[in-house]
């Protein structure tokens, strides 16, 4: 299959990208809708369909889910729908974040987590659980994960500053070093408190999960995410130019330092927001932009929107697998993305080693 995709990319003709976008949107809709049919509680497909139709404005009242089916309605509307929509938004944000970070760092093996987002969020979450903080009620963990994630990225950025500029290699190395330091703090807290390490909350958070997402949590995250992705897509020309080297980008008029700040801030805000409700879901930000580039070529005008679509499809499928692999248990989704993502990525690299990424 991949041979044909690679050939297609080489021979792409104008208009073919739009066809791929159209097909991707249809696939995402189908995957998202069909995902609602899967779950620990069996709900007859006809009931699922009725519940969906009953939610459509204006015509919804024609499709009552029927007497005695209210609990089905609750499962679909209050559990499965926010989980699936959560997976769509998280996948999209991680995909776009990966595309942007790879462009800013001019490096195909970077991802949003490498600038300290994951270690910072983990520190905030584990601190909140370890100290039993409840200053913001049930949202304390999410809030601390978000704040610590942004804080660690900020620290890494300021440590990397060299006379008003952030050399990207410094930032990458500082990011790795600070992340290791912060991860050590997290590990120390877990080691020091075995009861903490064994709580399922910490485990699910560090492995990533969409099972606990509610509409109330999802709404603000969705607004932040969509706004960030739209703004980032407006910078696709600048992000293309910076890929050719910061010096070159400066000579064609790009405000490089400003672009790096805008990109990093928006990626940090959106990825921290989704990580705060899902925990650490790995590999999406690394793999998905590469699949987009393989199909559409390297320009962010196409890579950013297609990374959003492919990230969403990838994560909803991973969520389906996480619910089907050991029924009736739900495996943390981060385990699935790693298990599918790594072999898939190794396969891609082998396919591409012949020239696509060869220096």
């Amino acid at each position, binding site marked *: 299959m991949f041979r044909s995709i690679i050939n297609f990319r080489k021979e792409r003709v104008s208009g073919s990208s739009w066809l791929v976008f159209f097909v991707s949107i249809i696939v995402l809709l189908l995957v998202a809708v069909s995902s609602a049919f899967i779950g620990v509680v069996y709900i007859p497909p006809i009931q699922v369909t009725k519940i969906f139709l009953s939610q459509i404005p204006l015509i919804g009242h024609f499709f009552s889910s029927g007497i005695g089916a209210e609990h089905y309605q609750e499962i679909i509307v209050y559990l499965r729908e926010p989980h699936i929509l959560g997976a769509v938004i998280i996948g999209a944000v991680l995909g776009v974040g990966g595309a942007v970070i790879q462009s800013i760092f*001019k490096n195909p093996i970077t991802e949003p987590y490498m600038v300290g987002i994951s270690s910072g969020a983990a520190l905030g979450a584990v601190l909140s659980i370890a100290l039993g903080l409840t200053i913001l009620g049930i949202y304390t963990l999410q809030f601390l994960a978000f704040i610590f994630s942004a804080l660690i990225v900020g620290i890494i950025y300021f440590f990397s500053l060299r006379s008003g500029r952030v050399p990207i290699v410094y930032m990458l190395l500082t990011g790795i070093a600070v992340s290791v330091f912060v991860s050590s703090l997290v590990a120390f807290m877990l080691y020091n408190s075995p009861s903490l390490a064994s709580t399922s909350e910490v485990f699910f958070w560090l492995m990533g999960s969409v099972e606990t997402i509610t509409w109330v949590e999802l709404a603000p995250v969705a607004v932040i995410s969509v706004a960030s992705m739209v703004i980032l897509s407006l910078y696709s020309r600048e992000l*293309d130019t910076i890929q050719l080297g910061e010096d070159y980008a*400066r*000579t064609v008029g790009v405000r490089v330092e400003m672009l790096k700040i805008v990109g990093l801030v928006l990626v940090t805000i959106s990825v921290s927001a989704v990580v705060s409700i899902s925990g650490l879901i790995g590999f999406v930000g690394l793999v998905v932009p590469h699949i987009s580039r393989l199909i559409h070529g390297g320009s962010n005008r196409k890579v950013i929107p297609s990374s959003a679509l492919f990230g969403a499809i990838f994560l909803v499928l991973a969520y389906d697998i996480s619910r089907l692999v050991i029924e009736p248990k739900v495996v943390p989704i981060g385990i699935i993305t790693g298990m599918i993502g790594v072999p898939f990525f190794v396969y891609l690299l082998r396919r591409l080693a012949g020239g696509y990424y060869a220096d």
Partner: protein
Amino acid sequence: MRIDLNSVEYSIGNFRLGPVTYSIQDGEILGIGGPNGSGKSTLLRIMLRLLRPTGGSISIDGVDIADMMPRDLSRKLAYLPQNLFSPLNLSVQDVLLASEYSMDRRSSKLDELIDRYDLGNLRHRDFNTLSGGEKRLVMLIGAINQGSGAILMDEPDTFLDVDKEMQVMHEITALRDSGRIVVIILHDLNKLASLCDNVLMLKSGKVMAFGSTKSVLVPDVLEKMYSASFKVEQIAGMSRIEAFPRIKD
């Protein structure tokens, strides 16, 4: 347009460049020559504001480039770097679009330039898969298309086939004739002699000589710069420079 280098100095570690004082006028090809490590590319990078001079200033039409917005500067100066690499696989078309970042797309002459250099079949190729010479041509097209008053080129002749090299040299002359400034780093002394109106020769960061090509590219100057002996002949009004190993007494 006029570019003024006013006592420009730059130092990093033990290396010191300058002071360089020179004025470049409309319709001039200024060649920068000198041995490896003499500071040619550093001077070009200072002119492009990629490096901040440690002394002196550069102004374009009387305005210090330090005070110009990036977009405005890119409309004055275009850059043809020594090399360009696209780590995330931009196509040739994407690379050319990147060069148009600050310009009004309606004034783009990309299609015409692509036809002139016969590069239509490369348009959708991954830029990294091009040969060295093809990359140079694509970058040159991008720089010319930018429409800026001056183009600063770092060894544009590298990797080019003889016919493409002649085409590029002809293009550079045409740019000069249309009133644009070309500042060009070249290693080959004969190309400096045949292409440039004026030359500025650097050695270990110091300006050894500057002025008209005929007055600077003479054996006395060249022998101070390189460990070789030189013979300069005038053939059909053009200087032909030959280098010989220096015989020690």
